[in-house]
């Protein structure tokens, strides 16, 4: 049996940390109340739903440099107020987050690719899992989506991993230790408007090889959108690791947007310390009109000089209208 430090004392402490955090974020929650509420349908069959995109930095403890287990419960509790939630990097803490996302349907991204190097390391590290809780590298995509069951359309899910990655060491992004990709979930509002929601996480890293990998991943994603969602209303959100002010990145993202006809929802970091890497893009389709009612940073995930992740949480309130 795997011995874990999550004994009774730990549970009590975690409970205290969670309760304290919940108390501290209560005011921020009240401020964001307008963004996250239940799906509403107007007489004209238009429906509004809220969407949250959040990179939760759910690596194992040594790499995360904090105690992700404690904040994962809070993240799940806060995120459960949104109709559609897209997480990136929930590698080790998917279960902890899912536990708090009551009443939501859960979908996960692709698993680890069958690269001999990854398989060998996975096998070598397997015994360590007996002693170290939440330690299971190398990883899959680390993507997950949670949605109000009333919004999920069948067949709901498509998932693919990217064919390229760059970097095995920390200085070059170490992205090849994960098998990044995208996850698509199809939604249908009670009014009959269909929207394909894509969650993705691209390579990080500042090197030319990383930039090239990001560009190829965006090309693969664009091709997938063309084949899986032709003429459909689409939302693409996640951690793109693209900074418009970084040479090459802005151009790659704009080329992707032009090819897929995606617009920026306007959601971005509002607090000054965040880097701009996360985006929520969208477009209308032949049968569904999609527009943005509100967008911005979900600031309830930040408390003073501490945040529940190393990325901002972005929210958008969409309005979907069936056109036919």
């Amino acid at each position, binding site marked *: 049996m795997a011995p874990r*430090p999550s004994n009774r004392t730990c549970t009590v402490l975690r409970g205290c940390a969670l309760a304290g955090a919940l108390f501290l974020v209560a005011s921020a929650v009240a401020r964001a109340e307008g963004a996250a509420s239940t799906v509403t349908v107007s007489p004209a069959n238009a429906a509004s739903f809220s969407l949250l995109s959040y990179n939760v930095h759910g690596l194992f403890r040594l790499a995360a440099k*904090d105690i992700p287990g404690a904040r994962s419960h809070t993240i799940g509790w806060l995120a459960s107020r949104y109709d559609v939630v897209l997480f990136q990097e929930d590698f080790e803490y998917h279960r902890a987050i899912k536990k708090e996302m009551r009443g939501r349907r859960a979908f996960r991204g692709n698993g680890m690719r069958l690269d001999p190097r990854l398989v060998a390391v996975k096998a070598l590290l397997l015994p360590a899992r007996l002693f170290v809780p939440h330690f299971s590298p190398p990883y899959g995509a680390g993507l997950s989506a949670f949605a109000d069951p009333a919004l999920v359309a069948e067949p709901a899910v498509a998932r693919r991993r990217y064919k390229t990655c760059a970097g095995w060491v920390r200085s070059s992004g170490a992205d090849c230790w994960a098998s990044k990709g995208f996850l698509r979930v199809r939604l249908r509002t009670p009014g009959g408007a269909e929207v394909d929601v894509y969650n993705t996480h691209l390579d990080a890293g500042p090197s030319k090889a990383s930039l090239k990998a990001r560009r190829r991943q965006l090309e693969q994603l664009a091709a997938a959108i063309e084949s899986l969602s032709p003429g459909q209303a689409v939302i693409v959100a996640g951690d793109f690791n693209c900074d418009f002010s970084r040479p090459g990145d802005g151009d790659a993202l704009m080329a992707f947007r032009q090819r897929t006809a995606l617009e920026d929802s306007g959601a971005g970091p509002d607090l000054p*310390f965040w880097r701009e890497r996360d985006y929520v893009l969208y477009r209308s389709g032949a049968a569904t009109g999609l527009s943005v009612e509100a967008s911005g940073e979900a600031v309830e995930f930040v408390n003073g000089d501490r945040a529940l992740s190393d990325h901002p949480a972005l929210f958008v309130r969409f309005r979907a209208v069936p056109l036919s």
Partner: protein
Amino acid sequence: MLVPVRMSRIRRAARDGFFAGLAASTLALALAGCGALGSQPMGLRVRAKTRFESEWHRYAALPEAKAIAVAGDPHGTYVSGIAEGEPSVAAAAAHALARCRERRADRRIEAPCRMYGVGREIVDTRQDD
């Protein structure tokens, strides 16, 4: 008969040692995990450097001719446009402004784009709040 007895003792000692080590490491991990959880505040400390400070630092290292334009408050919600390696300063300024306008429309920022830096000089004369 002597040899099997010794072997079984060695095996028993090795087994006991393994389980003792296992118990000790488990206990250490549990204590480390719980102790740290109790003493460390939840969450990650946010970066001390603002996004604009990082961006300006990166801009400083870019090759000439270069320019940076911004819309909004660089200490809060803002967008920027950067051009580098252009044939002239005027071309860099025009390119930076165009990129800034593109991002300004994306983020729905009402304030217009203005030149912040051309080459190594800060040209923004606006008083930041």
